[in-house]
């Protein structure tokens, strides 16, 4: 119990995320009789496969103090490429091509952001549109479709009650990125350029390497998410997948990243994504229209942001009043001393 208390005070963001996830899950489990079943668990994990990747990618970007707005376009491009070329080249080849393209897009973005020293939002809002154009071009402005539906069937085969090949792959990806972020130097560099960029640069970390790594992972995750969506549904639209950015950002912020960077982690991303998925799936049970889901996500994001900003402001004012108190105390001690010196004989 003591250790739990210690852990909670050590990781307030993570414990808040877990609390939120558990309460959302139990709310729906109590109100919806069908929610607490194996099948729903499987459906949630299926959603986790895509949203988790996006949440992971955005978590990494926000840890590095940046945000990748082009993630939806990148995913849509990968989906279009995979679906379009699966018939002619086979699923594996098409998938590899799509992943290679989206990863190299990420690398190029990261390189330019570091080289030009601009904020990522500036560049990625441009590539957001550019990649939509490329995707429209690749899809010839149509909805592309698969003709062979054995691949969608394979991707969503049920394994071990809750999992499918897609979600196992994604969990593997989470573990890999988590290990990378915690135990390698490059991972820690990413934290460093996010939390304290000037200090990191001054201590000799180049901006290029961590930035390229972050955006490469982000591009890869977006691409993989797009590939999974495309192959699973058998169709892809160049203008689709716009909702991923909002959902992924909500997941990242619930997972405890700070917009100032340098905070958060992969476990948080997983829990944040699961919370969003619980909410999504539960609302589907309630027959909520899609735009209402978007609205709830928006409200959730605003609440989390207000919470973060509020706590930052509160901490700032606490620190200020603490400083003032300290100064007052010192002054009174000094005044006491002076008074004593004056009163002392001689």
């Amino acid at each position, binding site marked *: 119990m003591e250790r739990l208390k210690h852990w909670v005070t050590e990781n307030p963001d993570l414990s808040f995320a877990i609390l939120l996830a558990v309460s959302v899950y139990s709310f729906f489990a109590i109100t919806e009789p069908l929610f607490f079943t194996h099948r729903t668990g499987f459906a949630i994990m299926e959603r986790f496969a895509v949203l988790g990747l996006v949440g992971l990618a955005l978590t990494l970007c926000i840890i590095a103090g940046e*945000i990748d*707005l082009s993630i939806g376009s990148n995913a849509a491009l990968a989906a279009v490429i995979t679906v379009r070329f699966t018939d002619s080249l086979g699923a594996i080849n098409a998938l590899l091509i799509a992943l290679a393209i989206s990863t190299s897009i990420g690398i190029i973005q990261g390189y*330019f952001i570091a080289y*030009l*020293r*601009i*904020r990522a*939002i*500036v*560049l990625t*809002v*441009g*590539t*957001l*549109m*550019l*990649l*939509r*154009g*490329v995707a*429209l*071009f690749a*899809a*010839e*402005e149509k909805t592309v479709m698969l003709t062979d539906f054995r691949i969608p069937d394979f991707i969503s085969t049920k394994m071990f009650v809750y999992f499918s090949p897609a979600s196992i792959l994604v969990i593997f990806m989470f573990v890999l990125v988590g290990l990378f972020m915690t135990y390698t130097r490059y991972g820690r560099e990413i934290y460093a350029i996010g939390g304290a960029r000037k200090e990191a640069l001054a201590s000799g970390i180049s901006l290029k390497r961590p930035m390229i790594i972050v955006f490469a992972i982000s591009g890869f995750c977006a691409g993989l998410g797009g590939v999974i969506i495309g192959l699973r549904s058998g169709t892809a639209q*160049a*203008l689709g997948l*716009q909702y991923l*950015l*909002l959902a992924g*950002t*909500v997941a990242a*912020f619930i997972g405890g990243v700070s*917009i100032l960077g340098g905070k958060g982690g992969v476990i948080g991303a997983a829990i944040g994504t699961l919370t969003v998925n619980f909410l999504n799936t539960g609302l589907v049970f309630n027959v909520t*229209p899609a*735009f*209402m889901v*978007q*609205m*709830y*996500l*928006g*409200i*959730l*994001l*605003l609440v989390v*942001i*207000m919470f*973060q*900003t*509020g706590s*930052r*402001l509160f901490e700032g004012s606490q620190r200020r009043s603490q400083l003032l108190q300290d100064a007052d105390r010192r002054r009174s001690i000094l005044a006491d001393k002076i008074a004593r010196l004056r009163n002392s004989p001689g």
Partner: protein
Amino acid sequence: MSDTAAVSATGLNIIKRIRRDHSPVVIVMVGLFLVVLISGALITDDFLTWFNVKTIIRDAALVGIMAIGLTFVTLSGNFFLLSMKEIAALSIICFATLMGADWNQWGSAGGEVTTFGLLATFLVAFMITMLVATIAGAAQGALIGLGGNPIVVTLGAAGLFFGIGSWWSDNLVVSYRRPHGAEWLGTGSFFGDIPNITVAFIVIAVVAELVLRYTTFGRQVYLVGANRAAGRATGHENFGMAIKCCIIASVCAAFVAVAFSGQVSSAHVNYFSSEFGSSGDMTIMVIAIVMVGGNSIMGGYGSTLRTSLGAIFISTVDNMMVLNGFNSGARVLAVGLMIVFSIIVFALVRRGSRAVE
């Protein structure tokens, strides 16, 4: 011999004077504009006609007005609002619902349609829409001003506004009958063959530029954008500035929504997401215009004049591609390339002149 030398010397002098008087950014922009214009005029039929010029400016008008509003936010150092099209969507639903509301039918009193009545209906709907937009803008601005990241705040607000708009209209098309009081703004023209929306664009562009250049408020926008610490030290907090700029952007978006609704006599939340223009997403289009115009996204540098020129530039390229029979994919690609190109060019030009943030 001496003649040619003199001519080339004058040429050099002109180039020198241009380089002295204008920043490289402007030269690059104008040069690009000229190249596109000339090459386009040479290869495209019917490009350089009065009718087509009118069409280009008219196409630029709606997105241009929105972009002018957004420029204030960008100049004040608050990046951009990702909720522009959602504010417009909420406003258009609000406006159309009010135009069609039973209690608001002043025009057909006693079975006869009067101009005055139509205008009264329009004014009531217009004022309430503007009020809604102001509240939406102020709420976002307050959150941003308190220290919330503009991108994330407006991403969340976008979902919220879109949801409210969809819920209000049941995700259906809200339509109202002609004749109605918004026709003059949507499709009418007071000045011969120049549509009113074009006039509105020009007037708003001029007013915005004058406000930025010659009023205290305009100066404050630049100050807060260029150096937030200096702004705070001189008593210009970002809190009030963010609220004011977000209100301006929201009101511009709402005005565009009203004008667009006046054109089609109806409203739907998706008007600004899918059916508008060539490039799908209106928010990104608006941001593209602000960027292609060469405004600094970090704030403090730029003007609404640049934004207006950016709008006309993008519209020109779009128009040229339409006339040459390109599909929407190629057009979105072109606009995307223009944004990325302008980001890279402006970043290179301005490199070293601004501290890394």
